């Protein structure tokens, strides 16, 4: 007889998405059906399904690019066939918590670029904002279209060893991953059609439509159908696949900086039929590279004159300029205060406790406890430049010690959270691997969240880093209807 796939499965003291804190032969109720299905898999069936999924990804061209890798830069995003399942009641809380957070972050940006009351009321120290390299002075006093700075936010959620959800970080600049969320669903539907249908999973397919509506909402020309475009840095960008995918799904043009031209404070797109005025740019290019006249002079990716058109209100950008100050990891520590200040509420989703190295007391603690902390740069994303204390070498720790001492504002530290794990197909059968969750929050006429998000999984055993650039993969995420 064929061995039962969970025969040797171990939770090893972690919170397991499928088994909770319980026994690995007793799945949580919402996983029962998937658990049973996995138990019924014929030998060889799983290999067949995996290769079926892999070839689908290749066919669809679902790839990403790794920087600083010698062997070819473009890779298939590894996909795991066991879906992550979130019950209705759990999702309701996450959904509310994310809406609350999205509002607070946006109100915060609005405030600091207008009257900065939260600073003058002493809730957030002024130096936090002034020292943030992502604070854009150009935006002070600017009347932002529809009062919305962040149209698309990707907030990363994790669960600790008791299963409690925490927000690990907010990505308020150009969060990636929505295309994988959509592709994963597509492929799961093909691979396990019956299980999928039998479980009443909430759909995610409306994301491109919601995104387009979010963009159109910003248009300065409401009288006519807005012209929206996706601005990509180009084929060498790690998320180029996503840019083309979303543009295609929304039915709008994808452009590079050189395809756009600013004339008399309006932005036009070069087409074979001549110039076409552009209303909204979904820009997947960082602030720094958008306009060489304003920001990085050497940028070849931007459009000279774009900022003038933007500040005139003749073209809208999503996300707005200067949102980086909200997802700065030092600012992150103050999000609970923002929620209290602007909404007079307690946060629904908690932050991970955070030590700010520029506070002397915190820094002292961090330097003394490097081994039990995760050290992160305040302004990086994608998991670059961080250090997990428990798995670091003496040399690395010394390096970080020096860096923190010479540049305390640029570093934060958090306790190492033993992230929840999820059963995942590995070389020796099904094993637990650490996961997180990145839901995508859209803010157009109102706030919209497609149920679930991108579940990222650290495929390397014991690794806590789930970023695709660091060897992570992904799973489909099923939010149940009830």
């Amino acid at each position: 007889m064929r061995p039962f796939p969970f025969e040797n499965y171990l939770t090893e003291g972690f919170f397991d998405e499928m088994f909770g804190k319980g026994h690995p032969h007793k799945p949580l109720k919402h996983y029962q059906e998937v658990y049973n299905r996995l138990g019924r898999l014929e030998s060889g069936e799983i290999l067949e399904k995996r290769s079926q999924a892999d070839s689908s990804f290749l066919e669809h061209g679902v790839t990403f690019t790794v920087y600083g890798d010698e062997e070819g830069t473009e890779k298939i995003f590894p996909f795991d066939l066991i879906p992550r399942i979130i019950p209705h009641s759990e999702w309701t809380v996450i959904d509310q918590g994310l809406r609350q957070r999205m509002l607070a972050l946006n109100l915060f940006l609005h405030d600091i670029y207008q009257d900065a009351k939260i600073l003058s009321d002493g809730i957030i120290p002024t130096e936090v904002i002034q020292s943030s390299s992502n604070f854009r002075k150009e935006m002070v006093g600017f009347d932002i279209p529809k009062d919305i700075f962040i149209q698309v936010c990707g907030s990363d959620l994790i669960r600790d060893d008791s299963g409690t959800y925490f927000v690990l970080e907010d990505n308020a600049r150009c969060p990636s991953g929505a295309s994988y969320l959509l592709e994963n669903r597509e492929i799961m539907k093909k691979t396990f059609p019956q299980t999928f249908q039998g479980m009443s999973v909430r759909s995610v397919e409306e994301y491109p439509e919601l995104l387009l509506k979010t963009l159109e909402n910003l248009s300065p020309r409401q009288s006519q159908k807005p012209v929206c475009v996706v601005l990509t840095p180009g084929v060498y960008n790690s998320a180029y696949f996503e840019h083309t995918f979303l543009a295609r799904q929304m039915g709008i043009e994808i452009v590079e900086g050189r395809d756009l031209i600013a004339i008399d404070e309006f932005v036009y797109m070069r087409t074979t039929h001549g110039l076409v005025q552009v209303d909204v740019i979904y820009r997947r290019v960082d602030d720094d590279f958008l306009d060489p006249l304003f920001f990085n002079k050497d940028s070849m990716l931007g459009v000279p004159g774009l900022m003038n058109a933007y500040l005139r209100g003749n073209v809208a950008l999503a996300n707005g300029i200067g949102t980086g100050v909200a997802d700065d990891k030092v600012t992150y520590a103050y999000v609970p205060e923002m929620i209290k200040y602007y909404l007079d509420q307690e946060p629904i989703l908690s932050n991970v406790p955070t030590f700010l190295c520029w506070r002397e007391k915190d820094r002292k603690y961090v330097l003394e406890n490097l081994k039990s902390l995760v050290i992160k740069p305040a302004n990086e994303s994608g998991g670059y430049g961080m250090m997990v204390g428990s798995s670091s070498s003496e040399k690395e720790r010394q390096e970080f010690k020096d860096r923190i001492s010479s540049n305390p504002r640029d570093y934060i530290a958090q306790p190492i959270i033993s992230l929840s794990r999820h059963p995942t197909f590995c070389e020796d059968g099904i094993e637990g691997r650490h996961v997180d969750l990145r839901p995508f929050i859209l803010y157009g006429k109102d706030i919209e969240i497609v149920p679930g998000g991108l579940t990222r999984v650290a495929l390397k055993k014991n690794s806590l880093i789930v970023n695709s650039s660091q060897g992570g993969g992904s799973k489909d995420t099923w939010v149940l209807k009830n």
Partner: protein
Amino acid sequence: MRLYIHHKTHYRYPSPVKDSFNELRLHPLSNQWQKCESCFVNVFPTSRLHKYLDLNGNLVHHFEIPQDHSKLIVESRSTISTHKRVDFESFPYGVSMKSLREMEGKADCRPYLQSSSYVEINPEAWRMAVDVQGESKDVFQTAYLIMEFIYERFEYSKATTSVHSHANEILSTRKGVCQDFAHAALALCRCLGIPARYVSGYFYDHTRNQSMRGSEASHAWIEVLVNGHGWFGLDPTNNRVVDETYVILGTGRDYKDVAPITGTYYGRLPESMEITVTVKPLQ
């Protein structure tokens, strides 16, 4: 059912105004008929928000904007689950009008039996109420007749009244919107000794052709106290007994107690005020 409500009010001023102080009653109640799962209230220009519970048990947010500003936006986003409120097969008939005497002295009824800012008990209103009551000796039946009377005999008209129109005016012109219809119904009920209170809130228009009136802004209706059965909601604008498609924001003696937005500022009147209310059912 579960409902999501987005309520946005946008004031534009012809020239900058300042020293604005405001109170908001936009946070739905939780009671035996509805649970407020979440409610986020925010304003632009961004301000620090504070809250307190008023004497009617409604949650009030307040804020101030001392600096110059030429627009004010107030938004609330609520998720509410509502429960079945009434059994349409068995309304609470059988409580006689005579029994209303017992309620006169009770402290929790008194405010809802007297005149208030927008509602006056006077001989004129009493005469109309007695005519509507006709032969009815039953409390709920009488209240229902009053609702029906207003729905059938009053003209729903947006242009004829203002936010400050008094019930007396509505009873004589027989024109108005939901707020006016509610004030008129309160006057008629109170004249006959039926405890009646003003309710502000929203409803989800589930009719196929969206034929209900008053869904474009926040809505208003009344509740009457039926001795031994509790409060029942009646919507004279739509001639409906209030059920789980309605969401209560707050209750009080009349509009003045529950006005969604009130405040003062220094400057000219707004050149426009744009209100959008979206109510949608959730899974």
